[in-house]
């Protein structure tokens, strides 16, 4: 029998960035097939190709042996492929039945609703749980919403079910129940693709596993025959990264974070008890799978959101005492010499509708160097921006007054670095600073971080890209479920770090 889904030679570029490099995957009916890899390995991109959300630049898709080409998710759904995304696609104010009906029109609304309600009850009963179709989505727990998504796909007749990181938002018990259910769905004849980075789930619930790294398919194997160590090695690779330098001038503690915790927001992992310190002249890399509290940590450090417990203290160069900044405003933190490179640069790094000059000058204008409160001096703003743009090699600037949103990702990031580093910060918080950048822009950003460190700054580098963390960090902390669970000195054993990341300490 032909495989349920066969993807071969799938290549996909986003701009200059190669997200998928001739990736392939073959899934049979009746099996739970895990797709394993680090963040950015290309798992989600590949699945979005299968679901018709991305059209590949090259490669072929076969469903049950028949070649197809999808111009949208509807066409993929017609071929029996249903994808359950990490962020549920449900209308919160509608009932379960209305949501299912929205995705599966059934003639008239009234008659359709009755039919859909019956179908929902049947499918839910077959999977061994209860789902009252008249309940509103916003009254449901996350786990229940996920069941609605699954029912929605099954009602649509999906014979191939793709679940993108389904357990990321669930508690331990819910996750076990979900995976057992997924196994039942496969037992009944469907093909289930489980996108995950959790080795334990793979070993316990998958019939086969395909491992991806850097947009390529590494291999497909039977997880029962491989050890967790083997899988880790395949997932994170075994290339040895040489540390960029030997530790030379590490100084005193600059930043001390003690027992930091953040309030729980539904669906997100809060900070539970993050404790670490960073010294002058070192890069402290925080490795970890995305969604383990990194965003909350970065927010707490730069003042975007107040932590619910714990303290952040800093020691400025030349100052004999520690200053606590746990509740300081972003402005106060900047005045203490903290620079921030946010993960989402389009939302938090730049005002994309304003000019390059504005975006640069906003970081300094309050100290009076660009004119008085009553009259700003655009000439000096422009000159300072011009100098910084040249020094930080921001390219693609046709005019300094052009919208910052017109810059490419790499150049936008360089503009942010220009603003943040021009003041010679003593502490730098960089969150995924190279996400989505091409190799050259990556190197430029890393060069800036290393240069700032060599100039004596304490750098916190939060990244989901293990290569990045291993490549330039002097010390590495691994963050899992809101805690720093392990620390390593550079050069760190890639394998050990990888294991700590995926709960195998």
């Amino acid at each position, binding site marked *: 029998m032909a495989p349920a889904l066969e993807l071969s030679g799938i290549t996909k570029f986003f701009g200059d960035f190669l997200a998928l490099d001739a990736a392939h995957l073959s899934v049979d009916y009746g099996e739970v097939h895990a797709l394993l890899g680090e963040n950015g390995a290309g798992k989600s991109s590949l699945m979005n190709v299968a679901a018709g959300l991305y059209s590949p630049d090259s490669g072929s898709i076969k469903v049950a042996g028949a070649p197809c080409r999808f111009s949208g998710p509807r066409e993929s759904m017609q071929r029996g492929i249903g994808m359950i995304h990490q962020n549920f696609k449900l209308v919160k104010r509608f009932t379960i039945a209305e949501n299912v009906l929205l995705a599966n029109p059934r003639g008239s609304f009234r008659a359709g609703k009755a039919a859909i309600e019956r179908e929902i009850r049947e499918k839910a009963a077959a999977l061994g749980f209860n789902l009252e179709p008249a309940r509103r989505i916003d009254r449901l727990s996350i786990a229940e919403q996920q069941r609605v998504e699954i029912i929605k796909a099954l009602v649509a007749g999906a014979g191939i079910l793709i679940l993108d990181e389904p357990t990321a938002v669930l508690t331990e018990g819910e996750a076990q129940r979900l995976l057992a259910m997924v196994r039942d769905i496969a037992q009944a004849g469907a093909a289930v693709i489980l996108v995950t980075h959790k080795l334990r789930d793979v070993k316990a619930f998958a019939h086969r596993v395909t491992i991806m790294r850097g947009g390529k398919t590494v291999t497909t194997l039977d997880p029962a025959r491989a050890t967790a160590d083997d899988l880790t090695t395949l997932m994170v690779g075994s290339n040895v990264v040489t540390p960029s330098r030997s530790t030379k001038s590490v100084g005193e503690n600059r930043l001390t974070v003690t027992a930091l915790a953040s309030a729980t927001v539904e669906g997100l992992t809060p900070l539970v008890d993050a404790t670490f310190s960073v010294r002058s002249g070192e890069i402290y890399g925080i490795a970890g799978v995305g969604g383990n509290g990194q965003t909350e940590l970065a927010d707490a450090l730069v003042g975007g959101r107040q932590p619910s417990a714990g303290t952040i203290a800093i020691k400025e160069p030349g100052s004999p005492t520690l200053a606590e900044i746990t509740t300081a405003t*972003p402005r106060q933190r900047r005045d203490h010499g903290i620079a921030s490179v946010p993960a989402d640069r389009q939302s938090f790094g730049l005002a*994309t509708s304003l000019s390059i000059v504005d975006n640069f000058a906003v970081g300094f204008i309050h100290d009076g160097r660009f004119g008085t409160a*009553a009259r*700003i001096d655009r000439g000096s703003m422009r000159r300072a921006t011009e100098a910084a743009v040249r020094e930080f090699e921001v390219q693609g600037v046709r005019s300094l007054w052009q919208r910052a949103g017109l810059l490419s990702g790499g150049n936008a990031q360089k503009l942010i670095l220009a603003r943040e580093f021009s003041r010679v910060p003593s502490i730098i918080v960089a969150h995924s600073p190279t996400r989505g950048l091409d190799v050259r822009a990556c190197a430029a950003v890393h060069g800036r971080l290393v240069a700032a460190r060599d100039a004596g700054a304490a750098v916190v580098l939060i990244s989901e890209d293990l290569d990045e963390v291993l490549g330039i960090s002097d010390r590495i902390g691994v963050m899992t479920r809101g805690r720093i669970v392990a620390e390593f000195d550079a050069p760190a054993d890639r394998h050990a770090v990888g294991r700590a990341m995926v709960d195998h300490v």
Partner: protein
Amino acid sequence: MPAWKQAVAVAGSIATGMLISAVILIVSGVPASDLVNEFAMNVFDRQSFQAVLVQAAPLILVGIAASIGFRARFWNLGLEGQMVWGGIAATAVSIYHIGPDALRLPLMALFAMLAGMAWVAIPAFLRMRFAVNEIISTLLLNYVATYFLYDLLYGPWKDASDAYPHSPLYASAERLPDLGHGVNAALPLALVFVLIVWWFAEFSRSGFYLKFIYANPAMGQLVGVPIIPVVWTAVLMSGALAALGGFVVPSGIAGRLTEGFFAGYGFSGVLIAFLARNNAATAAVVAVLIAMLFVTGQSFQIFYQIPFAMVQMIQAIIVMCVAASEFFIRHRIRLQR
């Protein structure tokens, strides 16, 4: 899209709006030939032009009031309530004879502005402290202000000489002086504030911060923009300017506080800010155009018994047409068979 094409799109949409309005007016009984005459008279007839300029001053003030509030993403729909309080505060100065005659007008203006700031401070506080939507709170507070005004005009402030619901006539020192040609001091006063607001928005540091507060407040906060003080400044300015409009209408036109002196200005102010893209200088020009519409509407009311609400309807039609033109500015249209 280049600027000239945008201008063409906006001008075209205004023309479309006027055309639709013209059709409605003709259907309701205005002869087509008179329609053009009445509108042209605003510019070519001296008396009408004076009426337009008199009408323009308060419209300019509410227009820039709305635009400075909108720049801070504070959707101040309480312009009329602030005008009412401006009128009440100015009239209080008249009724209680506060200050010497020579200082009477500046005091009235000052009291009006302070009252407007106090009134807008309520929704501003509610929004910044408790995240209460200011669109609702400013709008509803208009009714509170209006009923307070009625209470004064039907009660303690009622003119004893004729028993109508309006305040006693202002003394001559309390009326904005005529500068000749029938234009009173309200217009230059309004233009001075246009200059101030324009400067504030374009050249002051707070104006620079406002750009970030409008474009991306979350990012602005992270790079150290002092959001709360700057928003407060802009909101208080907005309230003060609207209230100043509430001072120049009674002092410049009727010479007393009347029951409906503020009617229609709130909506017009929002409209002016919208059409002027929150730019104070442009708002002054748009306000003059809206003033023409007001004056034309008044003569339609007299000569053709067209209700004044028709003026507001025409404004609404033009707003909708301009809003629709955004679609043509943001999208490129390609005909496909």
